[in-house]
């Protein structure tokens, strides 16, 4: 049986995300909403795990707006279907979108019938095949094997292993909010799944886990120095303080303000 297509919703407004989730009967299109993000920053951090085929993204969001996210995502995930949503009918936005591989540009408030039409078209495109996005994941392990031989860092010549190399790279670049698995993989010329597996193999840790660890440990230090949350968030490469606060709480078990106290 065909797998269902994965949908991700990125909008800073919770009610909008929830409406989007509830208003459409996704299963009738053979789709499921696999996740949401409240900002472009969060989306970049979790997109590798969610592995969406379709992304709905709002334009006006703080920290990283929909345009910037679309630029990054269309570069890192060719084949990803990006649908822009905006409440602002401005020519300049439309012009920017035209220059990018945006599947559709929709004006808010959105009407269900229109959303369904677009979703239908998106499904038709995905069904036509050949455009599946390459994420790391258990299902393309064989694909990753092939890369083993091609990779310039592969082999057992005793030099620095790819895992260690990437580890070092994370430590040097974790302040970059755009950093994620796909980006690092592209940087070193690996496939994402190969890097993911190799990283775990070499360091014993998951890529995302390790990146979060580095960021949060730094955050703890900064919190100790009395930094405001939004300042720390920006320092460790998660400039969206809302997402940062969730990450922090998840990692340390306490909220930033409590930790700071």
């Amino acid at each position, binding site marked *: 049986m065909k797998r269902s297509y994965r949908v991700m919703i990125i909008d800073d*407004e*919770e*009610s909008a995300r929830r409406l989007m989730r509830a208003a459409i009967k996704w299963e009738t299109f053979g789709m499921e909403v696999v996740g949401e993000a409240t900002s472009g920053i969060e989306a970049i951090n979790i997109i590798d795990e969610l592995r969406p085929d379709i992304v709905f993204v709002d334009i006006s969001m*703080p920290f990283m707006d929909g345009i910037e996210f679309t630029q990054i995502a269309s570069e890192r995930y060719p084949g990803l279907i990006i649908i822009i949503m905006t409440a602002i009918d401005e020519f300049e936005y439309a012009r920017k979108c035209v220059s990018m591989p945006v599947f559709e540009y929709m004006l808010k408030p959105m009407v269900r019938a229109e959303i369904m039409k677009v979703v239908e078209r998106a499904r038709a495109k995905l069904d036509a095949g050949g455009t599946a996005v390459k994420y790391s994941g258990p299902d393309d392990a064989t694909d990753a094997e092939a890369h083993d031989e091609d990779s310039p860092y592969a082999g057992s010549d005793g030099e620095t292993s790819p895992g260690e190399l990437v580890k070092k790279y994370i430590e040097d670049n974790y302040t970059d909010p755009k950093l994620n698995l796909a980006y690092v993989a592209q940087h070193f010329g690996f496939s994402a799944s190969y890097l993911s597996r190799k990283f775990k193999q070499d360091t014993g840790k998951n890529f995302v886990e390790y990146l979060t660890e580095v960021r949060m440990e730094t955050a703890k230090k900064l919190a100790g120095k009395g930094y405001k*949350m*939004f300042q720390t968030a920006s320092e460790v490469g998660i400039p969206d*303080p*809302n997402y940062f606060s969730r990450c922090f709480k998840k990692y340390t078990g306490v909220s930033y303000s409590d930790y700071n106290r």
Partner: protein
Amino acid sequence: MNRSNDRPKIKRTSISAALNLVFAVIILVVIISFVISVNFVIKSERRAYAVREAQMALTTLSNSLSSNISNYSELSRLIMIDDSLVTFLRADASTVDFGVINDARYGIMNILNVKEGVDCVLVFRNDMIMLATDRAAYSYESASMQTDLWKESIYEGKGRAVVGLNSYGVASRKDGLPVITIGRAIYDMYTQKRTGILLMNISSDVLSRILRQGSYHDVCLVGTNGEYLAGNKEYMKYYSADYAGNEILNRNVLTPGGNKLVSGCLVEGLPIVMLYVSAYGSESIPYGIIQVLIILMLVFMAVAGFAGAYVSRNITMPIMQLSGSMDKNKKSGELKKLDVEMPYSELNLLKGDYNDMIDHVNELIDTLVDKEKILRRAELRVLQEQIKPHFLYNSLETIGFLAFDAGADNVHEALETLGSFYRNFLSKGNRVITFGREVQIVRDYLSLQKLRYGDIIEDVYDIAPETEDFNVPKLILQPLVENSIYHGIRLKGEKGTIKIVSRLDDDILYVIVEDTGVGMSKEQIQKILSKDRNDRDEEKDSSFGLWGTIERIRMYCNDDDVVKISSEVGEYTSISFAIRSVPAVSGVEEDEEIV
């Protein structure tokens, strides 16, 4: 604006420059014609002078030659009456022998001893028996001697001396030297019959001596037959038969040594042509005339200069003045009429035209302003039609009821708030509303935003009751609050408070909008408060609402320092402003409910 920028690029000269050029050309022409005329005058004067000189010289020379030749004529008369010659002439042809001839010869030679210069004396009897004092020096033309042709002119003299050349052609000196011959017909004293002809040849040395004595270095004497006689032989090349007249003939000749005047005429009564050659001397330059000309020229130039200055002062300067006034008028930004006095009617005409134009322009502007006002009023009406959204309000009410009916009280409440927000937000298009309404807009806005973003925002109001009726420009509060949310609280990721405080003091409304967001750096505050539009562009998208609102408050109060921002990064931002009561603008009426 730069004056040179709005002029076409074509290079145009000014009147004064053009006049200067014209004057320069005139003066140049005058100088050139002066030089030409002076040159001409000098030349003609010098020629006239040379001609006079020549005339004098020639007349004197002519007299001197004539009198000398007369002396020889007298001598020939003496010879004619000499006894031994008379005997020779009277004697019968058969009795004329060598002795008779010799007696006569000696008789003549005795007389000739009195005077130098006579080369030879020839006497012919009617029967052509001849005697000669210096027979050996001559060769004789027997053929022409036998004809009567040469005798005719002598006979016509009837005994008077007739001067000719070279023995009238019957004899010539063997060495070829020219001689002047005085011929006489000899008549018997008693019978009064012609008994013979006497020819007295005078050597050309006589002529040379006369020239030498008179210091005639520039003279050449030529026989009427074109033969050189005496003087400067160089001048023979100027000779032509035209000079053989009684009147003096003057001719200009161009020689390598300059212009020369050749004058010539016959010596009175003699077959001799005098040629007198003179250069135009510098001593003949007419300084007087030149002086007069120079003075005239200077006077002319002075007049021209004066005319130039006059034109400049009376035409160019007033025009510049006029232009200056116009320019000043333009720069002042007001279209006033000019009141400069112009010295000439033409310039006054120009000024009048300009003033008429100003009138016309002002009229046009008034008309335009009127039209614009009418247009604005019409547009405003259309706008007001648009912002009476009955349909929206009615729909909101209907949906609100549906929600209420279905038990969704929160939806009903939200719709009510939205309706209230829009009613106050639009306020029938009025530009000025009460501060109380302004606060209500913010209350509704914030309660709707809280629905969107959850309870990250807490709003606190500290509104003095007396401030609620104070008139303020519409929408000065809501953009500040919106800025507090999007550029303050939301960026912090923590719950934040927005506080609005108002006080009335001495008829001035003081308002503070404060939030506990991320705050602003000094540079950000400076940029927001900057009046320079260039500072704005890069941030246009993010904080235009705040900046635009500050601008509107500034314009309403006509005071750039009316808005103040204080902030601490990471702690708070506080925007405060004070509005002085402005008399109600006409057209602002008490709002009615629109639904």
